[in-house]
């Protein structure tokens, strides 16, 4: 008769059939650490968040600036927040694609056989990606600064606006993660995500004032959560004020996470 004596089970040393919140957090942070190591190994995966913000900011300013606001300088306060939100939310799409590629690798089999929080491999990957968003936010504001955009709201307000964008991108990335889990291949994740992403970012007030849109489009742009984020960033950066838009942006983000995080984890576990 031998008894089971696993040397190392969990913090309390006894067998539990559930995972506590503290372990969920610890596992998620460890998984995020894995993501950072991967970025260190293959820094080229940061290309999109370094080149894209600079390129897009310059391009949009000089293409649309004259047409919309008369000159580029006057367009910047309208455009930089728009381009910021658009760029960061677009880069968040990479999350789903990378997750799909990652899940096809053998290491995910081991994650599934370990006594860890099921959500940790997903949540960790999404957490690592906030670093990518932070890079994109910084570079967009920096490019704007070089072009002559000096936000009237001040530095603190700009930081707050940046954090809001990062939080919203993180919440939207749960949608891409869901596609990443249910899709068969990385390219189909991209396809599915595009269908959602384009209307969401372009049918908004990101590049033009909403009242310049035809009425049916304006109706959509006004309820589009992306518009709220853009407006919130404009309020913060240009006037230093936290308006209703910021509240709606946060509420929208929380709702997305509340819907898609459980959906994603369920789909992930079913696939397992």
């Amino acid at each position, binding site marked *: 008769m031998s008894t089971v004596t696993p040397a190392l089970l969990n913090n309390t040393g*006894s067998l539990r059939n559930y995972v506590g919140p503290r372990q969920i957090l610890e596992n998620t942070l460890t998984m995020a650490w894995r993501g950072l190591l991967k970025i260190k190994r293959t820094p080229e995966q940061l290309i999109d968040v370094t080149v894209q913000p600079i390129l897009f900011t310059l391009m949009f300013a000089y293409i649309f600036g004259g047409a919309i606001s008369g000159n580029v300088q006057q367009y910047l306060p309208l455009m930089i927040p728009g381009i910021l939100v658009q760029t960061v939310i677009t880069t968040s799409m990479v999350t789903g694609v990378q997750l799909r590629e990652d899940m096809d690798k053998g290491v995910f089999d081991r994650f599934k056989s370990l*006594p860890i929080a099921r959500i940790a491999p997903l949540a960790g990957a999404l957490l690592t990606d906030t670093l990518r968003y932070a890079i994109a936010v910084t570079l967009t504001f920096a490019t704007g600064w070089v072009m002559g955009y000096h936000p009237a709201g001040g530095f603190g307000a700009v930081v707050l606006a940046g954090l809001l964008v990062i939080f919203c991108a993180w919440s939207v990335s749960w949608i891409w993660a869901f596609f990443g889990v249910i899709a068969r291949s990385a390219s189909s994740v991209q396809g599915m995500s595009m269908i959602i992403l384009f209307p969401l970012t372009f049918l908004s007030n990101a590049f033009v004032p909403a009242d310049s849109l035809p009425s049916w489009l304006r109706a959509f742009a006004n309820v589009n959560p992306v518009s709220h984020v853009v407006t919130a960033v404009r309020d913060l950066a240009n006037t230093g004020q936290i308006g209703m838009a910021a509240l709606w942006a946060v509420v929208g983000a929380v709702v997305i996470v509340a819907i898609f995080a459980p959906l994603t984890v369920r789909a992930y576990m079913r696939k397992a």
Partner: protein
Amino acid sequence: MVSTSRPTELAIEAHGLVKLFGNNRAVDGVDLAVKTGTVYGVLGPNGAGKTTTISMLATLLRPDAGEAKIFGFDVRTEAQIVRQLIGVTGQYASVDENLSATENLVLFSKLLGLKGSAPKRKAAELLEEFGLTEAAKRPLKNFSGGMRRRLDLAASLIAQPPLIFLDEPTTGLDPRTRGQMWDTIRRLVAGGSTVLLTTQYLDEADQLADRVAVIDKGRVVAEGTSDELKSSVGTAALQLRLVNAADIPAARELIRTTLGVESAVSAEAARLSAPMQHAELVTDLLVALRGDGIAVAEISVQQPTLDEVFLALTGHDTGATTDAPTPELETAR
């Protein structure tokens, strides 16, 4: 909250496990009983359902029917507990290709709850044990198949789980590395672990496993100790080639008196083949042959192959491309 392990003699207990992939009954009613502290071999050809069976026992796949308990804990309803009791080394290495060997082991140690400097220490200790210290910092992309397997096994042992699943641990390894893997497995068992391993090689099951289940098309077709299994399909055959074909009748007579069995002849090659139940009697036979002045040109032992085991147990072969049994052997049985 379940505070202690339930006392049980059985590390694995499975009844009527079924897994369907579409219409394909990959596992079709498998029963298993594995005693704690033993090595259990699951033997079967490609597509028999070995990996699928392990996946269900290791909570990676949900069974479509049947039930399985690990140390008395249900794989479905107590999956999180089961995961605390097992280590899984899959058929294909499940380590992170983007990280170094050390980083992999540190990652899994952290996930298993080691804190502070403990993950680094554990990683170094395991790398040392598995002879990977030299390669600790190298990217996994440059690892050989054997190194990858060893790292994979090391990763499964971090938490010192009482039950270890090894899915084809030696497939694709060269003979020397294979021998090292066998030694490692023996060491694990000596340390009190229970091991369930799958293999396509009869001799591997023979060398390592206390009991063996032969599975085919998702069903257990035979179960027992490897000796029982082998005797159910015939024993190894002793093959002798004589220098002089004229000695054949005298040699057959000696085989009859010393080994107590009839031998088969293929006269044109001056070859004799006899079932060999007791290897130690072969010495007597050789002494007797020399005493009678019968010169032996060649002597060899032919083990029953997995193909023959299958042929005997299922009435069809493995479908693998191994050679058909030699005619001499057919007559020897």
